[in-house]
Protein backbone atom coordinates (compact mmCIF):
# COMPACT_ATOMS: atom_id res chain seq x y z
CA UNK A 1 0.00 0.00 0.00
CA UNK A 2 1.42 3.36 -0.98
CA UNK A 3 1.73 6.18 1.51
CA UNK A 4 -0.70 8.39 -0.40
CA UNK A 5 -3.58 5.92 -0.38
CA UNK A 6 -3.22 5.39 3.32
CA UNK A 7 -3.24 9.09 4.34
CA UNK A 8 -6.78 10.09 3.41
CA UNK A 9 -8.75 7.44 5.35
CA UNK A 10 -6.65 8.01 8.45
CA UNK A 11 -7.32 11.73 8.38
CA UNK A 12 -10.99 11.04 7.71
CA UNK A 13 -11.14 8.57 10.59
CA UNK A 14 -9.48 10.96 13.03
CA UNK A 15 -11.81 13.78 11.97
CA UNK A 16 -14.98 11.74 12.45
CA UNK A 17 -13.66 10.17 15.62
CA UNK A 18 -12.78 13.58 17.04
CA UNK A 19 -16.22 15.05 16.26
CA UNK A 20 -18.02 12.04 17.72
CA UNK A 21 -15.83 12.20 20.81
CA UNK A 22 -16.68 15.88 21.35
CA UNK A 23 -20.43 15.24 20.98
CA UNK A 24 -20.31 12.20 23.30
CA UNK A 25 -18.30 14.15 25.87
CA UNK A 26 -20.75 17.07 25.77
CA UNK A 27 -23.72 14.74 26.24
CA UNK A 28 -21.97 12.94 29.08
CA UNK A 29 -21.22 16.28 30.73
CA UNK A 30 -24.82 17.47 30.28
CA UNK A 31 -26.15 14.18 31.60
CA UNK A 32 -23.91 14.38 34.64
CA UNK A 33 -24.87 17.99 35.29
CA UNK A 34 -28.60 17.30 34.95
CA UNK A 35 -28.30 14.33 37.31
CA UNK A 36 -27.70 16.89 40.05
CA UNK A 37 -31.43 17.64 39.87
CA UNK A 38 -32.39 14.15 40.97
CA UNK A 39 -32.08 13.84 44.75
CA UNK A 40 -30.20 10.74 45.88
CA UNK A 41 -31.19 11.04 49.53
CA UNK A 42 -34.62 12.17 50.69
CA UNK A 43 -35.05 13.85 54.03
CA UNK A 44 -38.72 13.02 54.05
CA UNK A 45 -40.83 11.19 56.60
CA UNK A 46 -40.87 7.44 55.82
CA UNK A 47 -43.81 5.95 53.94
CA UNK A 48 -44.15 3.25 56.61
CA UNK A 49 -44.92 4.57 60.08
CA UNK A 50 -46.71 3.91 63.36
CA UNK A 51 -50.05 5.62 63.87
CA UNK A 52 -51.00 4.47 67.41
CA UNK A 53 -52.65 1.62 69.26
CA UNK A 54 -56.10 0.20 68.34
CA UNK A 55 -57.67 1.81 71.41
CA UNK A 56 -56.59 5.27 70.17
CA UNK A 57 -59.18 5.04 67.43
CA UNK A 58 -62.85 5.37 68.30
CA UNK A 59 -65.61 3.69 66.34
CA UNK A 60 -66.10 5.39 62.96
CA UNK A 61 -63.63 7.60 61.14
CA UNK A 62 -60.53 9.34 62.47
CA UNK A 63 -58.57 11.82 60.36
CA UNK A 64 -54.81 11.99 60.83
CA UNK A 65 -53.88 15.36 59.31
CA UNK A 66 -50.11 14.96 59.53
CA UNK A 67 -50.33 11.72 57.51
CA UNK A 68 -53.32 12.71 55.34
CA UNK A 69 -55.04 9.41 56.24
CA UNK A 70 -58.50 8.34 57.35
CA UNK A 71 -58.62 5.43 59.83
CA UNK A 72 -61.90 3.52 59.74
CA UNK A 73 -62.95 1.37 62.66
CA UNK A 74 -65.97 -0.87 62.90
CA UNK A 75 -65.74 -3.08 65.97
CA UNK A 76 -62.55 -5.09 65.62
CA UNK A 77 -62.04 -4.31 61.94
CA UNK A 78 -59.77 -1.49 60.76
CA UNK A 79 -58.85 -0.07 57.42
CA UNK A 80 -56.94 2.95 56.13
CA UNK A 81 -57.97 5.22 53.25
CA UNK A 82 -55.73 7.96 51.89
CA UNK A 83 -57.09 11.53 52.05
CA UNK A 84 -55.15 12.57 48.95
CA UNK A 85 -57.46 13.24 46.00
CA UNK A 86 -56.55 11.24 42.90
CA UNK A 87 -57.19 14.23 40.65
CA UNK A 88 -54.43 16.68 41.57
CA UNK A 89 -53.35 15.63 45.08
CA UNK A 90 -55.36 18.03 47.26
CA UNK A 91 -56.60 16.84 50.68
CA UNK A 92 -60.22 15.70 50.83
CA UNK A 93 -62.65 16.50 53.67
CA UNK A 94 -64.95 13.96 55.30
CA UNK A 95 -68.56 15.09 55.36
CA UNK A 96 -70.19 13.13 58.13
CA UNK A 97 -73.79 14.00 57.23
CA UNK A 98 -73.48 13.04 53.56
CA UNK A 99 -71.01 10.24 54.41
CA UNK A 100 -68.81 11.30 51.50
CA UNK A 101 -65.35 12.76 50.91
CA UNK A 102 -65.23 16.17 49.23
CA UNK A 103 -62.16 17.59 47.53
CA UNK A 104 -61.94 21.35 47.98
CA UNK A 105 -59.76 21.99 44.94
CA UNK A 106 -61.91 20.83 42.06
CA UNK A 107 -65.00 19.36 43.63
CA UNK A 108 -64.34 15.61 43.36
CA UNK A 109 -66.64 13.51 45.53
CA UNK A 110 -65.72 10.06 46.85
CA UNK A 111 -68.08 7.65 48.57
CA UNK A 112 -67.34 6.20 51.98
CA UNK A 113 -65.37 3.29 50.49
CA UNK A 114 -63.20 5.68 48.46
CA UNK A 115 -64.90 5.14 45.10
CA UNK A 116 -64.83 8.23 42.87
CA UNK A 117 -68.48 9.24 42.66
CA UNK A 118 -68.52 12.71 41.12
CA UNK A 119 -66.20 15.39 39.79
CA UNK A 120 -62.91 15.14 37.93
CA UNK A 121 -61.17 12.47 40.02
CA UNK A 122 -60.21 9.62 37.66
CA UNK A 123 -59.51 6.92 40.27
CA UNK A 124 -60.80 5.85 43.71
CA UNK A 125 -58.93 6.90 46.86
CA UNK A 126 -56.05 4.56 47.78
CA UNK A 127 -56.39 1.97 50.50
CA UNK A 128 -53.21 1.16 52.43
CA UNK A 129 -52.30 -2.00 54.36
CA UNK A 130 -52.16 -2.13 58.16
CA UNK A 131 -49.97 -4.32 60.33
CA UNK A 132 -48.84 -4.51 63.93
CA UNK A 133 -45.48 -3.38 65.25
CA UNK A 134 -44.01 -5.50 68.11
CA UNK A 135 -44.96 -2.78 70.60
CA UNK A 136 -48.66 -3.07 69.74
CA UNK A 137 -48.87 0.02 67.50
CA UNK A 138 -50.51 -0.03 64.09
CA UNK A 139 -48.13 0.39 61.18
CA UNK A 140 -49.38 1.89 57.90
CA UNK A 141 -47.45 1.45 54.67
CA UNK A 142 -48.50 4.25 52.31
CA UNK A 143 -46.01 2.94 49.74
CA UNK A 144 -48.30 -0.06 49.19
CA UNK A 145 -51.91 -0.25 48.14
CA UNK A 146 -54.50 -2.89 48.95
CA UNK A 147 -57.79 -3.87 47.37
CA UNK A 148 -60.92 -2.06 48.40
CA UNK A 149 -62.76 -3.84 51.27
CA UNK A 150 -59.49 -5.04 52.80
CA UNK A 151 -59.99 -5.28 56.53
CA UNK A 152 -57.45 -5.70 59.30
CA UNK A 153 -59.16 -7.51 62.18
CA UNK A 154 -57.70 -7.56 65.64
Amino acid at each position, binding site marked *: MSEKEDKVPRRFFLEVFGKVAVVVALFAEAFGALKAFIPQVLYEPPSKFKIGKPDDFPEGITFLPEHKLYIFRSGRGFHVVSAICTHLKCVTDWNSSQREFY*CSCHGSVFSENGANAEGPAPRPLSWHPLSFAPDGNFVVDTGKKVERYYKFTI
Partner: protein
Amino acid sequence: MKERLLLLWRNLTWTWAPDSNRQASEAVVKNFWLHWFPSRISLRGLGWGFSFWLGTISACLFVILALTGLLLLFVYIPSIRDAYWSMKDIDNVVVFGWLLRSQHRWAAQLMVAVVFFHLVRVFFTAAYRDQRVWNWYIGIALFVLTIFLSFSGYVLPWDQLAYWALTIATGIAAELPFFGEDIRFALLGGNILGQSSLIRFFVLHNFFLPALVVILFALHMWRIRKDGGLACMDRLIHETKSKKIPVSPTKTYSLLGVTEGTTIQAATTEILDESNSVRTSPNLTRRIALVLLVTTIATLVLALAFPVGLEEPANPAVTPIPAKAPWYFLWLQELTAITTIKIGGKSISGGLIGGIIIPGILGLLAVVWPFLDRSPKEAIGVWFHKTRNTQNIVFTIICLAVISLIIIGVYMRGPYWKFYWPWQSWPEMPTLF
Protein backbone atom coordinates in the same frame (compact mmCIF):
# COMPACT_ATOMS: atom_id res chain seq x y z
CA MET B 1 -14.69 75.64 35.05
CA LYS B 2 -18.14 76.71 34.05
CA GLU B 3 -17.35 75.93 30.44
CA ARG B 4 -16.04 72.50 31.39
CA LEU B 5 -19.20 71.74 33.32
CA LEU B 6 -21.28 72.91 30.39
CA LEU B 7 -19.27 70.66 28.09
CA LEU B 8 -19.74 67.71 30.45
CA TRP B 9 -23.47 68.36 30.56
CA ARG B 10 -23.53 68.60 26.80
CA ASN B 11 -21.63 65.30 26.49
CA LEU B 12 -24.11 63.60 28.77
CA THR B 13 -27.20 64.99 27.13
CA TRP B 14 -26.31 65.49 23.47
CA THR B 15 -28.39 62.50 22.51
CA TRP B 16 -31.46 64.24 23.87
CA ALA B 17 -31.34 67.40 21.79
CA PRO B 18 -29.25 66.94 18.67
CA ASP B 19 -28.62 70.00 16.47
CA SER B 20 -28.48 68.25 13.10
CA ASN B 21 -29.64 65.08 11.38
CA ARG B 22 -26.09 63.79 11.49
CA GLN B 23 -25.83 64.41 15.20
CA ALA B 24 -29.21 62.79 15.68
CA SER B 25 -28.20 59.57 13.95
CA GLU B 26 -24.80 59.54 15.65
CA ALA B 27 -26.60 59.94 18.95
CA VAL B 28 -28.17 56.57 18.26
CA VAL B 29 -25.39 54.73 16.44
CA LYS B 30 -22.57 55.80 18.73
CA ASN B 31 -24.47 55.28 21.94
CA PHE B 32 -24.32 51.83 23.52
CA TRP B 33 -27.73 52.16 25.16
CA LEU B 34 -29.44 53.32 21.97
CA HIS B 35 -27.56 51.43 19.27
CA TRP B 36 -30.35 48.82 18.98
CA PHE B 37 -32.72 51.52 17.71
CA PRO B 38 -32.84 52.72 14.11
CA SER B 39 -31.71 56.32 13.63
CA ARG B 40 -35.06 57.28 12.12
CA ILE B 41 -38.43 55.95 13.10
CA SER B 42 -41.57 55.98 10.99
CA LEU B 43 -44.44 58.14 12.23
CA ARG B 44 -46.77 55.13 11.91
CA GLY B 45 -44.60 52.99 14.14
CA LEU B 46 -44.29 55.81 16.62
CA GLY B 47 -48.05 56.39 16.79
CA TRP B 48 -50.02 55.31 19.86
CA GLY B 49 -52.80 53.71 17.87
CA PHE B 50 -51.05 50.99 15.87
CA SER B 51 -49.24 48.93 18.50
CA PHE B 52 -50.68 50.54 21.64
CA TRP B 53 -47.05 50.22 22.82
CA LEU B 54 -47.93 46.93 24.49
CA GLY B 55 -44.48 45.44 23.91
CA THR B 56 -42.80 48.51 25.39
CA ILE B 57 -45.16 48.38 28.38
CA SER B 58 -44.24 44.70 28.93
CA ALA B 59 -40.55 45.59 28.82
CA CYS B 60 -41.13 48.47 31.29
CA LEU B 61 -43.02 46.10 33.61
CA PHE B 62 -40.08 43.69 33.39
CA VAL B 63 -37.70 46.49 34.40
CA ILE B 64 -39.95 47.40 37.36
CA LEU B 65 -40.17 43.72 38.34
CA ALA B 66 -36.40 43.30 38.11
CA LEU B 67 -35.73 46.35 40.30
CA THR B 68 -38.38 45.68 42.96
CA GLY B 69 -37.47 41.99 42.86
CA LEU B 70 -33.80 42.75 43.40
CA LEU B 71 -34.65 44.76 46.51
CA LEU B 72 -36.99 42.05 47.81
CA LEU B 73 -34.18 39.51 47.40
CA PHE B 74 -32.26 41.28 50.14
CA VAL B 75 -35.01 40.76 52.70
CA TYR B 76 -36.53 37.43 51.69
CA ILE B 77 -35.31 34.14 53.18
CA PRO B 78 -35.79 31.08 50.94
CA SER B 79 -36.43 28.52 53.65
CA ILE B 80 -39.71 26.77 54.36
CA ARG B 81 -39.34 27.65 58.03
CA ASP B 82 -38.57 31.34 57.54
CA ALA B 83 -39.97 32.29 54.13
CA TYR B 84 -43.48 33.07 55.36
CA TRP B 85 -42.22 35.09 58.32
CA SER B 86 -39.76 37.02 56.16
CA MET B 87 -42.80 37.90 54.00
CA LYS B 88 -44.58 39.10 57.13
CA ASP B 89 -41.49 41.19 57.91
CA ILE B 90 -41.53 42.65 54.41
CA ASP B 91 -45.18 43.61 54.90
CA ASN B 92 -44.93 44.94 58.44
CA VAL B 93 -41.34 45.70 59.44
CA VAL B 94 -39.25 46.58 56.38
CA VAL B 95 -39.69 50.30 55.63
CA PHE B 96 -41.95 50.51 52.56
CA GLY B 97 -41.54 46.75 52.18
CA TRP B 98 -45.30 46.35 51.70
CA LEU B 99 -45.16 48.84 48.86
CA LEU B 100 -42.26 47.06 47.14
CA ARG B 101 -44.01 43.72 47.37
CA SER B 102 -47.36 45.09 46.26
CA GLN B 103 -45.76 46.85 43.31
CA HIS B 104 -43.89 43.66 42.38
CA ARG B 105 -47.07 41.59 42.55
CA TRP B 106 -49.16 44.12 40.62
CA ALA B 107 -46.50 44.51 37.94
CA ALA B 108 -46.37 40.71 37.61
CA GLN B 109 -50.13 40.46 37.12
CA LEU B 110 -50.14 43.37 34.68
CA MET B 111 -47.29 41.82 32.74
CA VAL B 112 -49.26 38.59 32.15
CA ALA B 113 -52.20 40.66 30.89
CA VAL B 114 -50.15 43.08 28.77
CA VAL B 115 -48.05 40.34 27.14
CA PHE B 116 -51.31 38.55 26.31
CA PHE B 117 -52.79 41.69 24.72
CA HIS B 118 -49.51 42.21 22.85
CA LEU B 119 -50.00 38.74 21.35
CA VAL B 120 -53.59 39.63 20.47
CA ARG B 121 -52.42 42.85 18.77
CA VAL B 122 -49.79 40.95 16.76
CA PHE B 123 -52.44 38.49 15.65
CA PHE B 124 -55.02 41.05 14.58
CA THR B 125 -52.44 43.04 12.61
CA ALA B 126 -51.03 39.87 10.96
CA ALA B 127 -47.62 40.83 12.28
CA TYR B 128 -46.47 37.20 12.53
CA ARG B 129 -46.22 36.56 8.79
CA ASP B 130 -43.26 35.78 6.53
CA GLN B 131 -39.95 36.87 8.03
CA ARG B 132 -41.65 37.86 11.29
CA VAL B 133 -42.52 34.24 12.10
CA TRP B 134 -39.34 33.89 14.18
CA ASN B 135 -40.27 36.85 16.29
CA TRP B 136 -43.74 35.33 16.73
CA TYR B 137 -42.08 32.18 18.13
CA ILE B 138 -39.73 34.18 20.36
CA GLY B 139 -42.75 36.16 21.56
CA ILE B 140 -44.67 32.99 22.41
CA ALA B 141 -41.64 31.70 24.32
CA LEU B 142 -41.55 35.03 26.22
CA PHE B 143 -45.28 34.71 27.00
CA VAL B 144 -44.77 31.19 28.38
CA LEU B 145 -41.76 32.41 30.39
CA THR B 146 -43.85 35.29 31.77
CA ILE B 147 -46.43 32.78 33.01
CA PHE B 148 -43.76 30.50 34.50
CA LEU B 149 -42.12 33.51 36.18
CA SER B 150 -45.44 34.50 37.65
CA PHE B 151 -46.06 30.98 38.88
CA SER B 152 -42.60 30.49 40.40
CA GLY B 153 -43.00 33.91 42.04
CA TYR B 154 -46.12 33.09 43.95
CA VAL B 155 -44.63 29.85 45.25
CA LEU B 156 -41.99 31.82 47.20
CA PRO B 157 -44.15 33.25 50.08
CA TRP B 158 -44.83 29.63 51.15
CA ASP B 159 -48.34 30.46 52.28
CA GLN B 160 -51.45 28.38 51.62
CA LEU B 161 -51.80 29.79 48.09
CA ALA B 162 -48.18 28.87 47.31
CA TYR B 163 -48.39 25.41 48.82
CA TRP B 164 -51.58 24.31 47.12
CA ALA B 165 -50.77 25.98 43.81
CA LEU B 166 -47.52 24.02 43.74
CA THR B 167 -49.36 20.84 44.76
CA ILE B 168 -51.85 21.25 41.91
CA ALA B 169 -49.29 22.35 39.30
CA THR B 170 -46.90 19.49 40.02
CA GLY B 171 -49.95 17.20 40.15
CA ILE B 172 -50.68 18.27 36.57
CA ALA B 173 -47.04 17.58 35.59
CA ALA B 174 -47.36 14.11 37.13
CA GLU B 175 -50.29 13.34 34.80
CA LEU B 176 -47.96 13.37 31.80
CA PRO B 177 -47.74 9.82 30.45
CA PHE B 178 -44.51 7.83 31.08
CA PHE B 179 -42.29 10.56 32.62
CA GLY B 180 -44.93 12.42 34.62
CA GLU B 181 -43.97 11.16 38.09
CA ASP B 182 -40.25 11.62 37.30
CA ILE B 183 -40.81 15.22 36.24
CA ARG B 184 -42.79 15.90 39.42
CA PHE B 185 -39.99 14.29 41.45
CA ALA B 186 -37.32 16.43 39.74
CA LEU B 187 -39.38 19.64 40.06
CA LEU B 188 -40.05 19.12 43.76
CA GLY B 189 -36.70 17.55 44.57
CA GLY B 190 -38.58 14.76 46.35
CA ASN B 191 -41.95 13.12 46.70
CA ILE B 192 -43.45 15.84 48.89
CA LEU B 193 -43.28 19.62 48.87
CA GLY B 194 -40.39 20.72 51.02
CA GLN B 195 -37.20 22.75 51.31
CA SER B 196 -35.72 21.37 48.09
CA SER B 197 -38.90 22.37 46.20
CA LEU B 198 -38.76 25.94 47.51
CA ILE B 199 -35.09 26.42 46.66
CA ARG B 200 -35.67 25.07 43.14
CA PHE B 201 -38.43 27.57 42.45
CA PHE B 202 -36.39 30.32 44.13
CA VAL B 203 -33.50 29.79 41.70
CA LEU B 204 -35.85 29.41 38.72
CA HIS B 205 -37.63 32.65 39.64
CA ASN B 206 -34.58 34.74 40.45
CA PHE B 207 -32.00 33.58 37.98
CA PHE B 208 -32.90 30.98 35.39
CA LEU B 209 -36.19 32.35 34.02
CA PRO B 210 -35.27 36.08 34.12
CA ALA B 211 -31.96 35.29 32.37
CA LEU B 212 -33.87 33.49 29.61
CA VAL B 213 -36.25 36.45 29.34
CA VAL B 214 -33.35 38.90 28.97
CA ILE B 215 -31.71 36.78 26.25
CA LEU B 216 -34.96 36.28 24.34
CA PHE B 217 -35.86 39.96 24.78
CA ALA B 218 -32.56 40.94 23.13
CA LEU B 219 -33.30 38.52 20.27
CA HIS B 220 -36.86 39.88 20.03
CA MET B 221 -35.56 43.46 19.64
CA TRP B 222 -32.82 42.44 17.21
CA ARG B 223 -35.33 40.62 15.03
CA ILE B 224 -37.64 43.65 14.91
CA ARG B 225 -34.77 45.56 13.32
CA LYS B 226 -33.89 42.71 10.94
CA ASP B 227 -37.55 42.30 9.98
CA GLY B 228 -37.78 45.96 9.00
CA GLY B 229 -39.51 47.42 12.07
CA LEU B 230 -43.10 47.05 13.19
CA ALA B 231 -45.49 45.36 10.76
CA CYS B 232 -46.97 48.74 9.74
CA MET B 233 -43.65 49.36 7.93
CA ASP B 234 -44.60 46.66 5.41
CA ARG B 235 -47.65 48.74 4.50
CA LEU B 236 -45.52 51.85 4.16
CA ILE B 237 -43.03 50.05 1.89
CA HIS B 238 -45.91 48.70 -0.16
CA GLU B 239 -47.52 52.14 -0.53
CA THR B 240 -44.35 54.14 -1.30
CA LYS B 241 -42.53 51.63 -3.48
CA SER B 242 -44.33 52.70 -6.65
CA LYS B 243 -43.49 56.38 -6.12
CA LYS B 244 -39.79 55.83 -5.41
CA ILE B 245 -36.83 55.22 -7.67
CA PRO B 246 -36.00 51.55 -7.15
CA VAL B 247 -32.90 50.77 -5.15
CA SER B 248 -29.87 49.72 -7.19
CA PRO B 249 -29.78 45.91 -7.09
CA THR B 250 -26.03 45.86 -6.51
CA LYS B 251 -26.10 48.30 -3.64
CA THR B 252 -26.53 46.86 -0.19
CA TYR B 253 -27.21 48.76 2.97
CA SER B 254 -26.47 46.01 5.42
CA LEU B 255 -23.85 43.43 6.35
CA LEU B 256 -21.08 45.63 4.94
CA GLY B 257 -21.69 44.47 1.39
CA VAL B 258 -21.33 40.79 2.16
CA THR B 259 -24.73 39.96 0.71
CA GLU B 260 -26.06 40.78 -2.70
CA GLY B 261 -29.28 42.61 -3.46
CA THR B 262 -31.23 44.48 -0.84
CA THR B 263 -32.60 43.39 2.48
CA ILE B 264 -35.83 44.44 4.12
CA GLN B 265 -33.81 46.73 6.34
CA ALA B 266 -32.36 48.49 3.33
CA ALA B 267 -35.83 48.87 1.87
CA THR B 268 -36.99 50.33 5.17
CA THR B 269 -34.20 52.88 5.39
CA GLU B 270 -34.70 53.77 1.73
CA ILE B 271 -38.30 54.87 2.08
CA LEU B 272 -37.97 56.80 5.34
CA ASP B 273 -37.68 60.52 4.72
CA GLU B 274 -38.72 63.81 6.30
CA SER B 275 -42.35 63.32 5.31
CA ASN B 276 -43.02 59.98 6.98
CA SER B 277 -40.45 59.65 9.76
CA VAL B 278 -38.74 61.48 12.60
CA ARG B 279 -35.41 61.19 14.41
CA THR B 280 -35.28 58.39 16.96
CA SER B 281 -33.48 60.67 19.38
CA PRO B 282 -35.32 62.35 20.97
CA ASN B 283 -38.73 61.33 19.55
CA LEU B 284 -38.70 57.59 20.25
CA THR B 285 -36.55 57.80 23.37
CA ARG B 286 -38.85 60.43 24.85
CA ARG B 287 -41.92 58.28 24.26
CA ILE B 288 -40.24 55.23 25.79
CA ALA B 289 -39.36 57.30 28.84
CA LEU B 290 -42.98 58.47 28.99
CA VAL B 291 -44.30 54.89 28.76
CA LEU B 292 -41.88 53.82 31.51
CA LEU B 293 -43.07 56.70 33.67
CA VAL B 294 -46.77 55.96 33.15
CA THR B 295 -46.25 52.21 33.74
CA THR B 296 -44.36 52.92 36.95
CA ILE B 297 -47.08 55.27 38.15
CA ALA B 298 -49.78 52.73 37.29
CA THR B 299 -48.12 49.94 39.29
CA LEU B 300 -47.42 52.33 42.15
CA VAL B 301 -51.02 53.56 42.28
CA LEU B 302 -52.37 50.00 42.17
CA ALA B 303 -49.94 49.00 44.93
CA LEU B 304 -50.98 51.97 47.07
CA ALA B 305 -54.69 51.48 46.49
CA PHE B 306 -54.75 47.68 46.77
CA PRO B 307 -51.81 46.35 48.78
CA VAL B 308 -51.53 42.62 48.22
CA GLY B 309 -52.19 40.20 51.04
CA LEU B 310 -50.78 36.99 52.30
CA GLU B 311 -52.71 33.82 53.10
CA GLU B 312 -52.15 31.66 56.17
CA PRO B 313 -48.80 29.87 56.46
CA ALA B 314 -48.53 26.72 54.34
CA ASN B 315 -50.38 23.87 56.03
CA PRO B 316 -49.84 20.52 54.28
CA ALA B 317 -52.77 18.95 56.14
CA VAL B 318 -55.48 21.45 55.22
CA THR B 319 -56.49 22.48 51.72
CA PRO B 320 -58.25 25.88 51.71
CA ILE B 321 -61.92 25.76 50.67
CA PRO B 322 -61.99 26.73 47.85
CA ALA B 323 -58.34 26.58 46.77
CA LYS B 324 -58.11 29.00 43.87
CA ALA B 325 -55.12 29.81 41.72
CA PRO B 326 -54.45 33.45 40.71
CA TRP B 327 -56.87 34.66 38.03
CA TYR B 328 -54.60 34.02 35.04
CA PHE B 329 -54.43 30.32 35.93
CA LEU B 330 -58.10 29.87 36.72
CA TRP B 331 -58.99 28.92 33.14
CA LEU B 332 -56.56 26.00 33.48
CA GLN B 333 -57.92 25.10 36.90
CA GLU B 334 -61.44 25.23 35.47
CA LEU B 335 -60.36 23.01 32.56
CA THR B 336 -58.74 20.41 34.82
CA ALA B 337 -61.94 20.33 36.87
CA ILE B 338 -64.34 19.76 33.97
CA THR B 339 -62.48 17.68 31.39
CA THR B 340 -62.20 14.28 33.08
CA ILE B 341 -63.77 11.79 30.69
CA LYS B 342 -64.73 8.17 31.04
CA ILE B 343 -64.04 5.81 28.15
CA GLY B 344 -65.43 2.39 28.92
CA GLY B 345 -64.35 1.58 32.46
CA LYS B 346 -61.29 3.84 32.33
CA SER B 347 -61.12 7.49 33.30
CA ILE B 348 -58.73 9.97 31.76
CA SER B 349 -57.93 12.65 34.30
CA GLY B 350 -58.79 16.29 33.68
CA GLY B 351 -55.25 16.94 34.90
CA LEU B 352 -53.99 15.38 31.67
CA ILE B 353 -56.68 16.68 29.30
CA GLY B 354 -57.28 20.16 30.72
CA GLY B 355 -53.84 20.67 32.21
CA ILE B 356 -51.59 19.32 29.46
CA ILE B 357 -53.38 18.30 26.25
CA ILE B 358 -55.58 21.41 25.73
CA PRO B 359 -52.81 23.96 26.52
CA GLY B 360 -50.51 21.82 24.35
CA ILE B 361 -52.97 22.04 21.45
CA LEU B 362 -53.19 25.82 21.88
CA GLY B 363 -49.38 26.06 21.83
CA LEU B 364 -49.22 23.86 18.74
CA LEU B 365 -51.86 26.01 17.02
CA ALA B 366 -49.76 29.11 17.70
CA VAL B 367 -46.75 27.39 16.12
CA VAL B 368 -48.49 26.19 12.94
CA TRP B 369 -50.84 29.17 12.47
CA PRO B 370 -48.41 31.28 10.38
CA PHE B 371 -48.27 28.39 7.89
CA LEU B 372 -52.04 27.93 7.78
CA ASP B 373 -52.57 31.65 7.21
CA ARG B 374 -53.44 32.19 3.54
CA SER B 375 -54.27 35.90 3.65
CA PRO B 376 -52.51 38.18 1.13
CA LYS B 377 -49.45 40.27 1.91
CA GLU B 378 -51.57 43.43 1.91
CA ALA B 379 -53.06 42.24 5.21
CA ILE B 380 -49.73 42.56 7.05
CA GLY B 381 -49.65 45.55 9.35
CA VAL B 382 -53.36 46.34 9.07
CA TRP B 383 -55.82 46.00 11.94
CA PHE B 384 -58.67 43.55 11.12
CA HIS B 385 -57.88 43.28 7.40
CA LYS B 386 -61.01 42.12 5.58
CA THR B 387 -59.28 39.03 4.11
CA ARG B 388 -58.61 37.78 7.62
CA ASN B 389 -62.15 37.86 8.99
CA THR B 390 -62.52 34.08 9.36
CA GLN B 391 -59.27 33.53 11.21
CA ASN B 392 -59.81 36.63 13.32
CA ILE B 393 -63.17 35.20 14.40
CA VAL B 394 -61.63 31.80 15.24
CA PHE B 395 -58.87 33.51 17.24
CA THR B 396 -61.40 35.74 19.03
CA ILE B 397 -63.48 32.70 19.98
CA ILE B 398 -60.43 30.98 21.48
CA CYS B 399 -59.50 34.13 23.44
CA LEU B 400 -63.08 34.67 24.62
CA ALA B 401 -63.29 31.01 25.71
CA VAL B 402 -60.18 31.45 27.86
CA ILE B 403 -61.46 34.76 29.26
CA SER B 404 -64.91 33.26 30.03
CA LEU B 405 -63.30 30.34 31.86
CA ILE B 406 -61.29 32.86 33.89
CA ILE B 407 -64.46 34.82 34.74
CA ILE B 408 -66.27 31.62 35.76
CA GLY B 409 -63.29 30.61 37.87
CA VAL B 410 -62.97 33.97 39.60
CA TYR B 411 -66.62 34.84 40.24
CA MET B 412 -68.70 31.68 39.94
CA ARG B 413 -66.82 28.95 41.76
CA GLY B 414 -67.32 28.51 45.46
CA PRO B 415 -66.49 25.89 48.06
CA TYR B 416 -65.70 22.47 46.54
CA TRP B 417 -65.62 24.13 43.12
CA LYS B 418 -69.42 24.21 43.02
CA PHE B 419 -71.10 26.70 40.74
CA TYR B 420 -72.54 29.85 42.34
CA TRP B 421 -73.83 32.96 40.60
CA PRO B 422 -71.90 36.06 41.65
CA TRP B 423 -74.93 37.29 43.63
CA GLN B 424 -75.36 34.01 45.48
CA SER B 425 -73.66 33.74 48.84
CA TRP B 426 -71.42 30.83 49.69
CA PRO B 427 -72.35 28.49 52.55
CA GLU B 428 -70.39 28.80 55.77
CA MET B 429 -67.32 26.60 55.68
CA PRO B 430 -65.63 25.23 58.78
CA THR B 431 -62.08 26.52 59.16
CA LEU B 432 -59.50 24.30 60.76
CA PHE B 433 -56.90 26.87 61.64
